[in-house]
């Protein structure tokens, strides 16, 4: 490795770290100079979170949130991908179902909270259902889109080699559509993580969303409110980063722009 590339490598980390430090400093001094007694400084947030962590509460809340997202999200993946592939494969079916999907899709999962509680009661299932709803529609819609974007020549090549229609779907259309489907899955995971926080504020008694609302209600602990918010951001970023790694595996890499 030569000198310039080492500097470039360092710069990739240096500037983001510097920006974060500047942000924390601005926050710190803003709290100091404004003289606020309610909004916490970064240091207070850190102290509050580490107290929670020592009592094991924080860990449990994180796990609960992740678990709800995982169940709701994988249910959405498991139902959304087959449905999306099918609707993409049979345009007539898509045209039939499309109006219903297009009406349901713009309804924020938060608007579903009362209905979710009506269906599932106050508890885990309601929150999981909200995550499912948030993730399901983007997955179905990107799948339909991805399938209809598969070039005709791939499908023709598949049937030319004697494949039956289900084989063409499995061996040609699905792998051809996979990069675009992955984009939809990534967006859906982000939405699921957004929605679980909202769901936990109302429907359950644990998780990061509950931590926020509970910290505010029981003694205006804004250090914990802000701490939970930051954790949500960091975990969301981590989930996205893990998902991005999938984009570089070989059978889908062709569908993404990689500078190498």
């Amino acid at each position: 490795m030569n000198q310039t590339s080492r500097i470039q490598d360092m710069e990739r980390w240096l500037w983001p770290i510097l920006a974060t430090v500047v942000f924390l400093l601005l926050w710190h001094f803003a709290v100091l100079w404004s003289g606020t007694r309610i909004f916490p400084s970064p240091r207070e947030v850190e102290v509050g979170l580490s107290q929670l962590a020592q009592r094991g509460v924080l860990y449990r809340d994180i796990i609960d949130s992740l678990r709800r997202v995982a169940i709701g999200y994988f249910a959405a993946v498991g139902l959304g991908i087959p449905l999306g592939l099918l609707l993409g494969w049979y345009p007539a079916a898509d045209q039939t179902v499309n109006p219903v999907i297009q009406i349901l899709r713009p309804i924020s999962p938060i608007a579903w909270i009362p209905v979710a509680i009506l269906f599932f009661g106050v508890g885990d299932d309601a929150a999981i259902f909200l995550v499912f709803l948030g993730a399901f529609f983007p997955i179905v819609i990107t799948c339909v889109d991805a399938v209809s974007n598969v070039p005709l020549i791939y499908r023709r090549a598949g049937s030319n080699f004697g494949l039956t229609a289900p084989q063409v779907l499995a061996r040609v259309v699905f792998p051809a559509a996979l990069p675009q489907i992955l984009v939809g899955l990534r967006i859906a995971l982000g939405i699921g993580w957004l929605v679980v926080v909202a769901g936990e504020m109302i429907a359950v008694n644990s998780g990061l969303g509950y931590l926020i609302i509970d910290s505010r209600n029981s003694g205006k602990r804004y250090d914990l409110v802000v701490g939970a918010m930051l954790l949500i951001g960091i975990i969301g970023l981590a989930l996205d980063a893990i998902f991005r790694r999938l984009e570089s595996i070989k059978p889908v890499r062709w569908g993404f722009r990689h500078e190498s």
Partner: protein
Amino acid sequence: MTSVLAGSSAAGAVPSAATPIKLRVENLGISFQRDGVLMPVLGDINLEVRDGEFVCLLGPSGCGKSTLLNAMAGFLQPTSGQVLVDGEAVRGPDPRRIFVFQERGVFPWLTVAGNIGFGLGKLSREERAKRVQHYVQMVGLEGFESSYPHELSGGMKQRVEVARALAVNPDVMFLDEPFGALDSITRMIMRGELLQIWQAERKTILFVTHDIDEAVQLADRVVVLSARPGRIQRIVNVDLPHPRDISSARYLELRDGILAEVGLAHRI
């Protein structure tokens, strides 16, 4: 690979009148609906192609030569008339007749070996590996078996697609401007390689091109199509032995004849 030699005479010889008809196009017409109006694309095409023959379909862009090829391959139902292969009407695509697209037809999610073995699902694992290796060698891609198409050049991708077609041992190959997207040097090399493969395997080849030189270099017969709606304007026998001397008097004469046929003078 003995079966592919069946029915062929000595390698390199032009099929004679005694060779059976492989593919017959009868009174074929194709029209497309456009804005509610029926637009004729091809009209009254009659053509006979002998077993093992190399036929080029030549014409200006938009003349319907690709449409004709797609109809022969069974991807398009003709509006009138029919296509017969071995005396049987074509009803759809069939692994015995493989269509080769420009290199865009290679599957980007499969490796070179995965692509070439794509049509060999019915074979055992070892049988498939052997067949794949054979065709990897034939198209000169040793060492690239586990590469993905996006890591290859255009010419290499085209080789993958030709190998994928050859691997299922088809009787007929349809090539739709297969070298159109390649640079001129690669294109020349690929023509030579295709001729070698054709002479070794004796497939019946139908090759669409808009390049007159390409047609005269490759084909036993060149079918010249007129502008839309496409009709067969003339069929030119290329009576040159392979390897062809592309500066010989006869070559130039044939080329100029076709140039005149499509309405171009051989001066720019």
